[in-house]
């Protein structure tokens, strides 16, 4: 299967988006060659503004641009867009409800060799606390491009999370439909539900296929929009399958696992087991080895499902 990093998809999709929205502005913080907004920069140099290494100012500038009605994408690594600039996102974008899209790349430990200082596993938690913030974490190239294009007519502050590591393109571009806030059921099953997001969606499908061979029929749901969460789909899964495993390349504190647990515990309590980064920092190393070490793999998901079934 072909593999593409969603940051590549992001750069390509911006070039399509400007066809629909000629008022698009793209900002970057000296990482255009890494976030891949460079693709857009080469094609539309007069609509790409490098802000240098100043993520805080970049997001403030984005707010000002958006206040005049422009569509703005501001890009940096997740660590700095969500982490360093958190309070600017909260006060200058979230609170005034400005139409700024934050294109955050290099999320999670799959950043790899750069190590923990750049491996942001806290961004979803941070962004979830901001009222009115939409959070989208696409699983592959098809979904990432569709999510960016959907921003043409989706108003309001939005955090889009992209990865550095090439990941399998499993969605069919001809049939895939993206809708903000709607989870996607990829496989039916009634023994347990695996909810996954981002680069763990494909391993979740693989895990479910393997589990079938072992007599376990797991449902697989792709949650690309972490906020607002598709509670209806999640609660339905809780009711019909009784147990949920949530898989994400993010801290087990405050991410999708927490969002699902919060929804389920209030509306239809069932066991929720979280697979993620267990309140720790990553470290340097090749991305695939890191994912292996932290259990964010097909085997890791299978183990977690078995653990959950024994609860």
């Amino acid at each position: 299967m072909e593999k593409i990093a969603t940051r590549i998809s992001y750069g390509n999709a911006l070039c399509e988006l400007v066809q629909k929205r000629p008022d698009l502005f793209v900002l970057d913080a000296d990482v255009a060659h890494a976030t891949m907004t460079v693709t857009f920069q080469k094609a539309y140099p007069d609509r790409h503004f490098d802000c240098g290494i100043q993520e805080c100012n970049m997001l403030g500038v984005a707010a000002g641009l958006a206040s005049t009605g422009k569509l703005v994408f501001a890009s940096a690594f997740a660590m700095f867009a969500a982490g360093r600039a958190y309070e600017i996102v909260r006060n200058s974008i979230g609170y005034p409800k400005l139409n700024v899209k934050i294109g955050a790349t290099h999320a999670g430990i799959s950043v790899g060799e750069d190590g923990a200082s750049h491996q942001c596993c806290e961004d979803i938690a941070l962004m979830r606390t901001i009222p009115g913030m939409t959070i989208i974490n696409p699983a592959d190239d098809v979904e990432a491009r569709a999510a960016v294009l959907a921003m043409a007519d989706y108003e309001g502050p939005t955090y889009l999370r992209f990865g550095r590591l090439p990941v399998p393109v499993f969605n069919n571009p001809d049939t895939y439909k993206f809708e903000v806030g709607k989870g996607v059921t990829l496989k039916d099953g009634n023994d347990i539900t695996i909810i996954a997001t981002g680069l763990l969606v494909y391993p979740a499908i693989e895990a479910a296929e393997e589990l079938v061979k072992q007599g376990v029929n797991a449902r697989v749901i792709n949650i690309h929009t972490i906020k607002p969460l598709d509670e209806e789909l999640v609660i339905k899964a809780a009711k019909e399958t009784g147990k949920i495993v949530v898989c994400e390349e993010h801290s087990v504190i405050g991410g999708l696992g927490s969002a699902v647990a919060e929804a389920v515990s209030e509306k239809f309590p069932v066991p929720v087991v979280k697979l993620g980064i267990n309140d720790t920092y990553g470290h340097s190393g090749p991305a695939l080895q890191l994912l292996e070490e932290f259990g964010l793999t097909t085997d890791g998901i299978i183990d977690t499902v078995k653990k959950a079934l024994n609860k």
Partner: protein
Amino acid sequence: MESKLSQLDLQITACKVRMGIIEGTYNAKSGHPGGSLSVADTITYLYSSHMRIFPDNPNEPTRDRMVLSKGHTAPALYSMLAQKGFFPPEEMKELRKIGSRLQGHPVRDKIPGVDMSTGSLGQGISAACGMALAGKVSGDNYRVYTVLGDGELQEGMVWEAAMFGAHYKLDNLCAIVDNNGLQIDGRINDVMSPYPIDKKWEAFGWNVICIDAHDFDQIEQALNDAQNKTGQPTVIIQKSTKGKGVSFMEDKANWHGAAPNEEQYNQAMSELQARLEELSGEPPAAE
């Protein structure tokens, strides 16, 4: 541009703006009168005689923008907007109260005439840069103003924005630094000196103009010079008096974030009322 007011009319309006500041903070039993009073003359000039604004259509796309980066001085902005008819002056009594749209710090889309939500220091100037960039790229002729405190210059983000404004040659942007010399913890040069302010902005590539914040002729000249400057943004560094216009508040750090009690309110209002009568009693100035 708005039609020019005479010096006398400007002084009368500024006096009314100051009364609104006292009215608002007294009724709220909180707020920031000191810095509001120090920027009152500049805000008065901007909205009365300089900026292109539309009180009947506050979000008119071609309007000039003003971002109050020192957002805690919202009473000055609100009081001015009320004088211009964006909302009734009586509403100043609702400042900071439950159910009021006059929030403690400015909120965009909630208060007519407020162009950007501010209050977290250092952020307003970045938003102003974004507005100015949008105008330049789109070929819109509006101008963008942003008012900062001198203590606010301690925020590193201000200098990120300063670098940005000069780099993108945002000559439609004018920053105004209200140099009243005081911040909550005391004199700015004792707490964390931002001096020399003029040389810092100059080094960042801005056109620097230094004026007296309470002299309308100097304000007018500076704003016109800023407008005529091409190729770089302008910063007007205005030497001001914190608490200006209310005798017992002048140049006192403790009036940064404290509201007058009833006795102080009465004294402040009678001083301003006397000033207003003195101004109004004079024969109209020949234009």
